[in-house]
């Protein structure tokens, strides 16, 4: 919900009954009003019906997260003596991560990957696709929409293998066949341009999500506002810059938040294409964590890296929310 209303001083007058909420109502006040109007057994029923969901969250989300935090302070391993007798090591795992270059290098690679593939690539192309498909005079609109949506329904592993085939070295790779039409020789894409390759693949896969979010946001903008602006003499560019984009600020930042989090946690797409290589050039943080936890079996160390990632994602989320002034 945007807070433009607050700044415009157009706060809706407070009403007692019925307790319909105005967009400007505070969250806590809303909860109080809502709860006050429920009978005791309604509240009990809601509580009971929430129990399965809460239990699932506790068992599969909160519990493992807390356990992972605990593991990060131990030397737990899946092999060796530490597997049988794990011990509390305090901040040793964190000290290790901060004292070796590999962890920071992985974070840097992840930041590069998120910025170019999600924040830049998916955002721009998703926005363009949303604007284009919003135009009513476009023919075969649903066909284009379906084509953009398709990558989203392809399973991650299948997408990786398909792209692995497309980017294959030699004359048989689809990408090399395409550039061969223009006289260029074959390129070993995953060796010569591994980061570019995984960025392109992730953009391809994520455009659909961006497009859906932006299309919904575009549809929510009242036609009256746009028409009023046109009457005032606003050009198409002005309309986008001063009307459409400001009204889409909330969804845009929400997209940024979600896509940053999901891209940071991508594993299979990159692992099946490059396994983090060549060398460490695509060793994103998820692969770094996987390697430590499940290739070298250092569960404590892998957990510590996960906890740091969790904190970074939380900070990122807060920053986005503050910047956008949206309520999630």
């Amino acid at each position, binding site marked *: *919900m*945007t807070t*433009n*209303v607050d*700044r*415009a001083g*157009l706060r809706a007058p407070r009403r007692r009954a*019925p*307790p*319909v*909420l*105005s*967009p400007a109502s505070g969250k806590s006040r*809303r909860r109080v*009003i*809502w709860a006050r*109007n*429920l*009978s005791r*057994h*309604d509240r*009990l*029923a*809601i509580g*009971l019906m929430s129990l399965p969901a809460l239990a699932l969250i506790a068992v599969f989300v909160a519990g493992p997260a807390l356990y992972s935090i605990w593991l990060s302070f131990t030397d737990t*391993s*899946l*092999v*060796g*003596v530490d*597997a*049988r007798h794990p011990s509390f090591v305090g901040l040793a795992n964190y000290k*290790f991560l901060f004292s*070796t270059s*590999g962890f920071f290098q992985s974070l840097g690679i992840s930041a590069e990957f998120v910025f170019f593939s999600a924040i830049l690539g998916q955002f721009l192309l998703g926005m363009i696709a949303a604007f284009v498909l919003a135009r009513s005079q476009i023919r075969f609109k649903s066909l284009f929409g379906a084509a953009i949506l398709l990558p989203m329904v392809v399973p991650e592993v299948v997408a990786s293998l398909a792209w692995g085939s497309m980017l294959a070295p030699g004359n048989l790779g689809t990408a090399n066949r395409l550039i061969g039409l223009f006289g260029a020789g074959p390129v070993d894409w*995953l*060796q010569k341009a591994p980061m570019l390759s995984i960025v392109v693949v992730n953009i391809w896969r994520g455009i659909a999500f961006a497009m859906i979010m932006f299309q919904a946001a575009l549809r*929510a903008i*009242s036609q009256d*506002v746009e028409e009023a*602006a046109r009457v*005032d003499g*606003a050009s198409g560019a*002005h309309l986008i810059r*001063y*009307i459409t984009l*400001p*009204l889409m600020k909330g969804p845009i930042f929400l997209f940024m938040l979600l896509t940053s989090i999901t891209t940071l946690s991508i594993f299979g797409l990159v692992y099946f294409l*490059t*396994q983090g*290589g*060549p*060398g*460490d*050039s695509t060793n994103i943080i998820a692969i770094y964590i996987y390697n430590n936890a*499940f*290739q*070298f*079996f*250092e569960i404590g160390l892998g957990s510590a890296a996960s906890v740091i990632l969790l904190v970074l994602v939380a900070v990122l989320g807060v920053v986005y929310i503050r910047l956008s002034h949206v309520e999630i």
Partner: protein
Amino acid sequence: MTTGTVVDPPSKPDTATPTTSPDSSFPRRDFLRVAGVGLGAALAASQFGRRLGASDRTASAQSSSPIILKLAQHQSIRQKIDLAVLPLFQSQMAAQGYNVRVELVETTLPDNNYQTLVTERYSAGTAPDVDDYGSSWVPGFAEAGYLLDLSPYLTAWSQWPQFYSSVVGALKQPNGAMYGLIHEWATQQLFYRYDVLQKLGINTAQPGSWPELITRLQQIKAKTGQPPLIVPIGTQWASPEQGMYNVLLGTGSPLYDQQSKKWVVKSAGINYVFDLIYTLNNDGLIPTQDLLNPTPWEPTKYKAFVEGTMPVSFQGTWGWDYDWGPNGSAPIAGLDAKVKTWDFPAIQSNSAPYVDATAGWAYTVSANTKHPAEAVKLVEFLTTGKALAELLVAVGDASPRSGIADLAPYSQNPKLLQAEQEFRIAKTFPPYPDQDQADEAWEKAEDGILDGGMTGSQAAGMFAQLATQLIGPSNVQN
């Protein structure tokens, strides 16, 4: 036009959601009905489950159901051999009055993926009774408590004295227990394409030292324009025991001190090896880019060596069959005439070129098995007679015990018979506790040279630091 001042957002679903009306409340009667039905269903399900469990146990106790042993294999060639010989084991056991059936758990995966899988199985307590994998994994699994101590069974086995002393030494852990039975043994050397080197006019006599070998490699590179030497280096290949540990053995510096039972992470030998890696990398004598990629053996050992463009390779005896044999992963036609071997060049001034012996795969029994005696019987069967002779030829390794040399098809393979004689006198580096951690530190330090621009001494320093952190300072010699 200004922004954000006159825009009243259209009404959103929020405005409608939290209102309460008599229609939306949940009547007490309905609530009680739903709760009652749910509780009744839960009770009925629990009773049904209890009765079902009880009837299962009764049926199981009353029937003479066979003992099911699960044997895991992750290489298709080994699966084929097992499928062929397991009926014989079952009939032998039946003759002795045991009703045993063996289920082969076929999970065909590359070694590193299988190591992850089997570790998770052990950790979760779902491992098969018997498993088969590289003996370098055994110490880590044994220390974690995943494996059964085979010592009491093996020492009571009539055929145990036929296992060579070097094999027995490699099996024994510092506590004296044996957690795996090594069933194959390989010797490692430098394999080279004799036909290619002849064509290029390169001397094919045994190189006496590494500088001499490097000179020849540079000559090859000058003529082909390609890095000529294939060495398993780095985290992608992840097999230092097939790579530079072979060179370390020639330096006389131990990586593990058996007396103090501690790792030696700093030594002149370690410095020598990392300096050598730096030289090979810096001079473009090894395929750096391929070594940094996933499955580095594909473009090198399975392609470039076969084509003759990378004509020298670190390699074990399994190359004769498993890799380049007629039924191997990348067959070389006329293998015996085209491929010859050199011993590893000497490093110490008073020493001679040498062969390295490496323990191959080992059978292990899960500590959680319900049938330890039968599981060990299976392991004994698989390391005996025709079952072992067939396997050794299929994977191209030498026998770890006597009594196999006369059995076909092993008896018809002179290279393996020769390897069996060689490995008993070869230098060897058996796996030790914390081997995985030491290997990890070693591979990462190698990567430091391959793609991190480190010098040999910097990589040696990185190995010492990482190994100390991963193995633990108390397990490392200062």
